[in-house]
């Protein structure tokens, strides 16, 4: 099969909750979030804010934008049944750069350092560009939420036996073996139990898992001995550039 024309159909992931109610809820949430974001711009443009007020305004906007990303992704998961996703070769370094650009302000606000490690030769995966971008943004949001103040987030891409592996490593708190097993078992299948990682319901990870499955990709997690997690997305590699 031609890799550029491969088409997959996703599955409904919302069970008895039903897609119409999810879509309606997402739409209802989106409008106030758009308003909050717009009002923060208005405050900024009015000027005459102290540094503290300006920082608060920035944080209000960034929080609204993060919530908007979640809402848009929830809408996407509900639409996977209806959508036909044409998978195509995607250069993954460009995707990571998109994620870094979109979150630059948020990253700075959290005083995080980001390190990107990609091979010199282009790494090209087979996927759906927008879903991949949304998946990586979700994983990045997750890392930001758990990384300690002044921490480092490591992004990477590598080829591995005909596959492409995109990874994001954070320096979040250590979790015990039982919580890790639960996290690993439920990853991408259902929301995480509250407390698996403090401050998170795992909704973003669940969405990332749904998107991964829609692209025939696999989402995995690794726990590090000294704390922190690595979330990896394993995708089919494209052979497109190997002829060059």
């Amino acid at each position, binding site marked *: 099969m031609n890799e550029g024309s491969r088409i997959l159909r996703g599955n409904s992931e919302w069970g008895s909750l039903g897609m119409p109610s999810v879509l309606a809820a997402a*739409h209802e949430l*989106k*409008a106030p*979030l*758009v*308003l909050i*974001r*717009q*009002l923060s*711009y*208005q405050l900024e*443009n009015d000027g005459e804010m102290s540094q503290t007020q300006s920082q608060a305004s920035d944080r209000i906007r960034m929080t609204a*934008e993060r919530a*908007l990303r979640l809402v*848009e992704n929830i809408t996407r998961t509900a639409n996977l049944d209806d959508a036909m996703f044409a998978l195509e070769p995607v250069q993954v370094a460009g995707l990571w750069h998109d994620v870094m650009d979109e979150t630059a302000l948020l990253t700075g606000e959290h005083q995080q350092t980001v390190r990107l490690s990609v091979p010199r030769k282009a790494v090209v995966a087979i996927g759906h560009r927008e879903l991949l971008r949304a998946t990586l943004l979700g994983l990045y949001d997750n890392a930001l939420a758990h990384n300690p103040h002044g921490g480092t987030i490591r992004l990477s891409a590598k080829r591995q036996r005909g596959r492409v592996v995109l990874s994001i490593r954070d320096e979040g708190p250590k979790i015990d073996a039982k919580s890790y097993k639960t996290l690993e078992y439920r990853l991408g299948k259902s929301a995480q139990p509250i407390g698996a990682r403090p401050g998170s319901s795992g909704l973003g990870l669940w969405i990332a898992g749904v998107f991964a499955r829609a692209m025939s990709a696999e989402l995995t997690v690794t726990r590090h001995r000294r704390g922190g997690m690595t979330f990896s997305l394993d995708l089919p590699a494209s052979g497109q550039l190997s002829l060059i």
Partner: protein
Amino acid sequence: MSKPYILLLEDDRWLADSYAVSIESADHEVVVTDSAQSAIDIVDEYGAPRALVADVMLAGGTVFSLLNEMGSYEDTKHIPVILNTSVDVGQFHQQYLDSYGVIGVLDKAKSTPNKLIEMIKICLVSRDGMVAR
């Protein structure tokens, strides 16, 4: 109306107020309305606006019925349009948008006041060039 105006069609009043502040800060006169019918009434009263900035989803329908109506009159058929929306307009063909005089589409969740002002500038240039529908 003391000078040519921008017509802003947005049914969320607070959002409309905030967009209006942004547009006025760029020295444009703005008239705000929240429905297609009242937009027609405003055009009848004040004459054709220099540009229309409109949400897509409105109470009772979409903006396209308004655009269709405006496109059928000589004095309003060349009004450049900016769609400012949360709807994924990727579902509309460019040719379809062109036929309604849509110069640009802004995503409410990602756009900024500066982008809106820039888009209005582009609209006004396009209007001066009398882009036909």
